[in-house]
């Protein structure tokens, strides 16, 4: 079945440290990939997206993600985390070959930032 997996439920990093959030997908063909962030009590905001082309994608708030076809992964990274980055992060995908355009989400990774 087509799915998106985020193996880490909860991650804690120190402010200023680097961050990598993992995302793996299981699709027959390469899907379109997204990372969203959700602050407590808020809706979801798009951080970045990958459709095709350069496999390193830059997003907002200093985030980037790298698409690796061989590993079916789309990991999110940030070189230096700020306290305001504490939130829940969702990886999502849209299969390329379906008329249903809705996102399939991973279960999310909650990021805690220590001072």
């Amino acid at each position, binding site marked *: 079945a087509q799915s998106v997996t*985020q193996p880490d*439920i909860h991650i804690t990093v120190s402010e200023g440290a680097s961050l990598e959030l993992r995302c793996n997908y299981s699709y027959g063909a390469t899907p*379109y990939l*997204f990372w*969203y962030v959700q602050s407590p009590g*808020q*809706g*979801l*905001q*798009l951080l970045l*997206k990958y*459709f095709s082309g350069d496999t390193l994608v830059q997003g907002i708030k200093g985030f980037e993600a790298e698409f690796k076809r061989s590993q079916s992964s789309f990991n999110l990274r940030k070189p230096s985390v700020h306290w305001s980055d504490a939130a829940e992060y*969702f990886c999502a995908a*849209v299969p390329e070959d379906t*008329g*249903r*355009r*809705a*996102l*399939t*989400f*991973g*279960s*999310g990774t909650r990021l805690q930032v220590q001072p």
Partner: protein
Amino acid sequence: IAGITQAPTSQILAAGRRMTLRCTQDMRHNAMYWYRQDLGLGLRLIHYSNTAGTTGKGEVPDGYSVSRANTDDFPLTLASAVPSQTSVYFCASSAGVYNEQFFGPGTRLTVL
């Protein structure tokens, strides 16, 4: 300000009651979606609409219905609410096939 609005913000509902969650967007997006968010499960698609006048079932459609009479509105109806429908509901919209989806602020629904 352009965006998506949802109403109500939160609601406590007795089991067996009928409830409609409202969603309106003013971006003239073709596609709209309803998701539910449950702890540990991420967001799951309930129903979607690729364009006004059409709807489709998502991953968890049972107990829910939608309509899309016009471009802007996409109400979600629970015909007879059950406690398992306690969740946070998000409406979203997008301009085209794989464009960014914009999310509303959510409706927190508790069914007792």
